[in-house]
């Protein structure tokens, strides 16, 4: 029996066939107007050697097939609109609906990037103001909205470091990165041509100042820092860190992945950072889309501003225009002006929140994280016992040592209770780590429910460790064999021959 002859899966249960397995020769899901110009043979218009001889094996399905396939799939997917999604450093806050409407307006979605400037003044005005808002929130002098994601912002910022130092005739080859940093930090440094040097954390979870002093040499371009860091801790020595780095001629890069903790509380530009990126898809509520698109605007102090990518948007008192004539710019980091429709959503968010609202966001995010941290600390090891900011880490070492239940098992068990798991096994400096970021858009009841389930899982780990180790039990698929996938890569469907 072929797959097509088996009964279709019921919504929310089981798995869905591949769209290719639903294909039936001759079936279509599209329509186009009849050709209204003279029909000429393709091979009279193009050299035969340039032509395709075999059609691509795209599915032949009806429109109903397409709609049902993707709708059924969507029913086996977790999202913020379905439930709590406490992934640390990902800021899975609610994605406001009205922002989606704004980005879908034909006046934004239907605009070609090369339309003449005089007919895109609304779009340019939005970009201009968005830059101003992010300057104010970040305490920086100018912002480029071009980078498409956080890692893209890091690449942009480090190329600006490079250009700045080269401009001063200095050849610096290393970038310092704390051991608690996001994986993108060292990767970004390396793709920008730097060697990376790891800076250890001290016992309070911050940058080890003595180590920093020792490592900060004349060949160091700068330090990349997330503050609060991935342990959720604000570095109390921020001022000293900035002094050490700057005195040695280095620059300070702010990884904005965790900016949800500090809006209206501490602006990176004021705290000594030279280049700053924001993740609009984290702090500013734009949806993650299953892995993008994001947007990673990069801001700079007055000194670093000349190196920002082109174009920027200027206003001459009458008209908004794109400015390319910036001789010290690192150039362009992608085509056009950035992920504009994502910027539209973040713009709508900032306008809905206002300055007091954004500060409230950070206060509520920090309050929620501390509240949840204390509740979880009743059942899990708390490696850094101090107030956290918007996220925190707890460890499953007790459960592992006493009952042989790993953090991975407990993360999978959470899925059975309808919660997405926190980020696990990161940061690397905490064994059996859970990194939890509740965000400000979760109610106290949700936090309580999550804490109750975590307590219950800790209890299960004690009473029925095998139940937890075999989790998940109620998800559309059971635990998936990731090692098999890597050992025998099957990364595209092939028709059965």
């Amino acid at each position, binding site marked *: 029996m072929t797959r097509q002859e088996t009964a279709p899966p019921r919504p929310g249960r089981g*798995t869905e066939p591949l769209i290719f397995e639903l294909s039936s020769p001759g079936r*279509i899901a*599209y329509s*186009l107007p009849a050709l*209204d110009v003279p*029909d*000429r043979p393709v091979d009279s218009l*193009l050299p035969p050697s340039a032509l395709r001889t075999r*059609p*691509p094996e*795209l*599915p032949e*399905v009806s429109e109903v097939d397409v709609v049902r396939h993707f*709708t059924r799939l969507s029913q*086996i997917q977790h*999202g913020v609109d379905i439930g709590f999604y406490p992934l640390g450093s990902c800021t899975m806050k609610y*994605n*406001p609906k009205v922002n989606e409407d704004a980005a879908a307006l034909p006046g*934004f979605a239907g605009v*070609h990037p090369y*339309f003449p400037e005089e*007919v895109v003044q*609304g779009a340019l005005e939005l970009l201009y103001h968005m830059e101003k808002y992010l300057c104010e929130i970040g305490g920086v002098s100018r912002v480029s909205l071009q980078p498409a*994601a956080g890692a*893209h912002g890091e690449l942009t910022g480090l190329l600006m470091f490079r250009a700045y130092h080269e401009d001063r005739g200095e050849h610096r080859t290393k970038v310092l990165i704390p051991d608690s940093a996001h*994986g993108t930090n060292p*990767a*970004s440094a*390396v*793709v920008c*041509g730097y060697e990376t040097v790891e800076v250890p954390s001290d016992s309070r979870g911050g940058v080890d100042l003595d180590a920093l002093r020792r490592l900060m040499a004349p060949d160091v371009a700068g330090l990349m820092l997330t503050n609060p860091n991935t342990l959720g801790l*604000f570095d109390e020595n921020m001022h000293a860190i900035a002094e050490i780095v700057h005195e040695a001629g280095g620059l300070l890069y702010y990884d904005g992945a965790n900016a949800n903790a500090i809006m209206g509380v*501490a602006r990176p530009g004021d705290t000594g950072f030279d280049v700053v990126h924001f993740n609009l898809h984290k702090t500013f509520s734009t949806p*993650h*889309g*299953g*892995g*993008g*698109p994001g947007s990673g605007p990069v801001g700079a102090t007055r000194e670093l501003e000349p190196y920002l990518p082109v174009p920027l948007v200027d206003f001459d008192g009458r008209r908004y225009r794109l400015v390319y004539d910036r001789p010290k710019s690192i150039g362009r*980091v992608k*085509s056009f*002006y950035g992920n504009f*429709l994502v910027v539209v959503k973040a*713009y*709508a968010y900032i*306008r809905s*929140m*206002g300055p007091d*609202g954004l500060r*409230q966001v950070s206060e*509520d995010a920090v309050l929620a994280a*501390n509240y949840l941290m*204390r509740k979880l600390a009743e059942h899990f090891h708390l490696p850094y016992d101090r107030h956290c900011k918007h996220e925190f880490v707890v460890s499953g070492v007790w459960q592992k040592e006493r009952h042989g239940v790993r953090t991975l098992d407990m993360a999978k068990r959470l899925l059975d209770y309808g919660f997405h798991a926190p980020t696990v096994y990161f940061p690397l400096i905490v064994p059996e780590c859970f990194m939890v970021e509740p965000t400000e*858009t979760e109610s106290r009841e949700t936090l309580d429910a999550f804490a109750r389930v975590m307590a219950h899982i800790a209890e299960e780990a004690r009473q029925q460790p095998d139940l937890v180790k075999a989790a998940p039990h109620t*998800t559309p*698929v*059971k635990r*998936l064999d990731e090692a098999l996938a890597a050992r025998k890569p099957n*990364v*595209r469907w092939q028709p059965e021959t």
Partner: protein
Amino acid sequence: MSVKHRYLPNTDADRRKMLEALGLRSVQELFADVPERVRFKGTMDLPPALSELELVRHVGELAARNATVDGYVCFLGAGAYDHFIPSVVRHITGRAEFYTAYTPYQPEVSQAVLQSIYEYQTLICELTGMEVANASMYDGATAAAEAAIISSYALPGRRKVVFSSALHPEYRETLRTYARGPKLHLLEVPAEGGVTPVDRLREAVDDSTACVIAQQPNFFGCIEDMAALGEAAHAVGAHFVACVDPISLGVLKPPGEYGADLTVGEGQGLGVPLGFGGPYLGFFAATGKLTRRMPGRIAGVTVDAEGKRGFVLTLQTREQHIRREKATSNICSNEALCALAATVYLCTMGKQGIREVAEQCLKKAAYAAQQLEAAGFPRTFAAPFFKEFAVRSAVPVERVNAALLEDRIIGGAPLGRWYPELADSLLIAVTEKRTRQEIDRLVARMGELR
């Protein structure tokens, strides 16, 4: 004073209870570790909060001040195209299960995202004739840049990247930016007659060449001799990177058949709105032997504990979060939702539709070029073209476009912006959306100016 807001569920009573549980009196105590000297005092200088109704009106006013492809007839392309997007695409990508999900870190509750990535990878492989594709890059420009970097890593000691001036100007600019880190040496061969001169290219490559990048159709819309360019690259042991328009692959030979080692391109034409330049998606595909060199996410098939088929992110030891300072790409977030749009688009167009849309572009563009020629706007280049072509204008191109704009037509891209020697030329794109009537109107209006 705390703020009441529709996105903030916790009331003052909730906040009080949470503080009590923490043994605190004020939320400020939680910020005690932010040193006084770095603390922001006062209120940020941002406009006050808007209600939803005010916000809707405000963004509506901003949007209303932009021309759109609905209100104007668009003959502008140059890397972003006004193709028709079937309604299904927006309905599926508008499902919150897809758009409010994160990168699928817990596969057991992320099968929709993972399976759709796997389907996307398959569709891109089918279209391009390549053996492996990733889950997407930021856009065509960054995909091309990363292909160059990967080639240099895969062929140690080789740092030269060769392409012609017929590669999209913004892709070349992006390449220049990306080349700084890995210290790639970029060599640009001037296009001749709107195409990459194979002989010049052959002279430009040597045993230090990591790759040759060629665009098909190229920035001028012209058809390149990809087989010959690929042979020139392979003759010196370099990779051949094809940068292609996915819609054109409905009629054009897939890069896998002319020996491309890597195939990249801008996927915007596959169901992604123009959106003033983004978000779009870069597709990135390769031969099987380069699988473990690929940047970005890749979804693969596996089985669950009961032997049932499922999907996971795989070959992750390539990626930045595992390799960290040994990584060859730093990409993390990609353009997943745009890749979903491309997936739904390609499933909807299907085997027949992709060919029909490509043929309509080809034939309508041919008709427009012929009519413009008759109206006194000859083609700048004689080379065959797909859906875009350059024409020379005896009248200054700014005047042409200004006159067209009055008639609510957006004319072609003035090539002088990137190529001073082509200041008299306009690059005109004709997609399946343009009707004969619209083309005739363009031709008539331009003809009147002569």
